[in-house]
């Protein structure tokens, strides 16, 4: 490592006013875009890439990385405030973020999300700076066998997010995996469950399903609660936000979750095809598993928010690793970034570390700056964002509904997607009513296509002999860890049920 070059590259980036301004603008745009359900960081980067044509490389990369990091955090804002994850990577943040907002701690949840996002991003950027060639070499050993087992490992966390009934959680997960098979089969293009509907040939769009299951379902349930007298229509949060960053006690309490989340996010982000949406659930389940009080997870604790938000921003650094080291994008945003590099005449790949080392270091610095810019924008915005929940429910619910439905439309500009969103709103409402957890469906929708495609590819390559998997040590490693996670989660769930039963008995005696 050339330390002098590294420091001069950081100074070069941090002291350049154009790069500072562009990164800050990118972060602000990313946070706002991420907060709108249906708008993802990928769309933000794609939208703004034409603006970067006339700029030098580093300011333009700063702008795009600002959107990327800002978008990752922005997704948590709507997840916490209105139960609608702005981006798929924020899907697990609502597990604890929304209950925190319901308890009148929306500002605290936002500040924890922001601080964890920043720390996760910094962890990702540091790992990228010091370990990128090493991590990239491991990530590139991933074939269909490893990807299949990675998907199975991801699915093994379902038990942790299933709530009280594991059977219901697994029914939800298999239902989600079944939903993924709607449309043309990815290998042979045969129609499955399309019922002659042309719009179903491409399968169900993830974002409308996500918005429907969470936001629309919450609005329907909210109206039901108000009319039935179980919730006040005038209810609103009166939280006074005295600080924009979490207090020392909260930081101390969540430090471990942030660190593990950041590391998990970076390593999962480094695997091409796997991204923040998978990392957040893995990090959540891991941190819940090692927690002394797993029964508190899902009830609105900062640890849940910290573990997921650090993971998704850690992914931003992770996804850059294969991009810079091997020229292989880790996710859709880095695929667009790859285009930006090529447009500027730079070909990412192993030779970049030889011929363009100063550029590589400046990209590392730009990512660090993007995370800092996101923190600044986040700090400025916490009070404004938290105002949303100070609206009365009778105004908030209809507004959430029309914004969500527009978000569902905007992803493909297709009215059919609004129908899908409403349909899954009804499914989500019914599932909530009868205590079926929604998160397993989400995880299954993320991992289902990855699981099927790699399963089919592996079987084709090995002439239908699944036993060949034993020749793939990384895959076997993932499988062993997945089995371990399942056993551990089952034991943990028993512990949670026993503690809850004891608490219930205690409250009855009192």
């Amino acid at each position: 490592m050339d330390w002098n070059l590294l420091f001069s590259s950081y100074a070069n980036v941090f002291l350049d006013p154009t790069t500072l301004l562009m990164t800050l603008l990118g972060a602000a745009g990313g946070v706002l875009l991420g907060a709108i359900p249906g708008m993802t960081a990928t769309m933000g980067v794609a939208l703004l890439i034409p603006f970067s044509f006339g700029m030098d490389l580093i300011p333009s990369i700063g702008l795009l990385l600002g959107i990327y990091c800002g978008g990752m955090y922005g997704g948590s804002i709507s997840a916490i405030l209105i139960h609608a994850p702005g981006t798929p990577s924020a899907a697990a943040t609502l597990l604890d973020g929304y209950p925190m907002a319901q308890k009148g701690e929306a500002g605290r949840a936002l500040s924890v999300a922001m601080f964890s996002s920043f720390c996760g991003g910094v962890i990702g950027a540091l790992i990228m700076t010091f370990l990128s060639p090493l991590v990239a070499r491991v990530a590139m050993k991933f074939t269909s066998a490893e990807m299949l087992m990675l998907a199975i490992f991801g699915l093994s966390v379902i038990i942790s997010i299933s709530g009280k009934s594991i059977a219901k959680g697994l029914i939800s997960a298999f239902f989600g995996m079944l939903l993924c098979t709607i449309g043309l089969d990815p290998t042979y293009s045969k129609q499955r469950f399309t019922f002659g509907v042309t719009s179903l040939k491409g399968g169900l769009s993830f974002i409308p399903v996500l918005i429907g299951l969470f936001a629309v379902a919450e609005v329907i349930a909210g109206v039901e609660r108000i009319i039935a007298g179980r919730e006040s229509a005038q209810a609103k949060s009166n939280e006074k936000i005295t600080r924009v960053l979490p207090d020392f006690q909260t930081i101390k309490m969540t430090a471990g979750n942030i660190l593990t989340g950041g590391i998990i996010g970076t390593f999962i982000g480094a695997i091409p095809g796997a991204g923040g949406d998978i990392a957040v659930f893995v990090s959540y389940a891991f941190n819940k598993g090692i927690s002394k009080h797993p029964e508190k997870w899902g009830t609105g604790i900062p640890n849940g928010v910290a573990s997921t938000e650090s993971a998704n921003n850690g992914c931003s650094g992770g996804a850059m690793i294969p991009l810079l080291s091997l020229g292989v994008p880790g996710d859709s945003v880095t695929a667009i970034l790859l285009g930006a590099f090529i447009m500027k005449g730079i070909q990412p790949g192993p030779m970049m570390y030889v011929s363009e080392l100063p550029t590589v270091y400046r990209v590392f610095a730009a990512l660090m700056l993007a995370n800092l810019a996101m923190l600044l924008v986040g700090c400025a915005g916490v009070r404004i964002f938290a105002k949303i929940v100070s609206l009365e429910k009778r105004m908030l619910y209809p507004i959430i509904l029309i914004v969500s439905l527009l978000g569902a439309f905007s992803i493909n500009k297709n009215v059919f997607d609004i129908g899908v969103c409403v349909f899954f709103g009804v499914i989500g409402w019914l599932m909530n009513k009868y205590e079926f957890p929604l998160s397993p469906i989400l995880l299954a929708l993320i991992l289902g296509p990855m699981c099927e495609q790699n399963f089919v590819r592996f079987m084709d390559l090995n002439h239908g002999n699944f036993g060949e998997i034993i020749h793939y040590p990384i895959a076997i490693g993932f499988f062993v860890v997945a089995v371990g996670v399942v056993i551990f989660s089952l034991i943990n769930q028993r512990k949670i049920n026993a503690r809850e039963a004891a608490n219930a008995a205690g409250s009855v005696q009192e």
Partner: protein
Amino acid sequence: METKKTQTKAFANLIISVLLLVFEVWAWIQSTAIKTAKNATVQPATFPQIMILGMGVFTVILLIQSVMKLLSMKADDPLAQKAETLNVFKDRGTLAALFVIALCALYVYLFKDVGYVVVSFFLCAIIMWLIGLRNPVKLLLISALVPLGMWFIFYKFLTVNIPMGILQPLRDLVDMI
């Protein structure tokens, strides 16, 4: 007062299990209609069928758990609590929820022809009225300004072309300015 067994969460789980089993049988029949691919090691129908089977196994487990629970349920059991109802005659909340769902279905139907701003105005205003907002100024202002603002942001800044239906001249005006 003790809840009737047929009104408990355990009984609701039993009914849901039966309905899910019916759905799974239907899905399996549908999956048999998926065309086969020549020389394929894994047929296009294989993966969905594995998922249906998986769902079926856990549905049967839920069914057995529910039956066992109903046979030996104590009053303080969490599953002995009263389950939520879908009976619109007994629960006004459910009736309101179904009304909102019907409004949403109508919204989807009218979205393209009437346009986002107008359908959203009506959807927003009706739901606000339904859940108790009686101030006409607030009701009309929020219902009109939020969809207009969202349309403007999506159209001008995010370049998403949203159907405007009968308000098409407004878009022409914005384009002209």
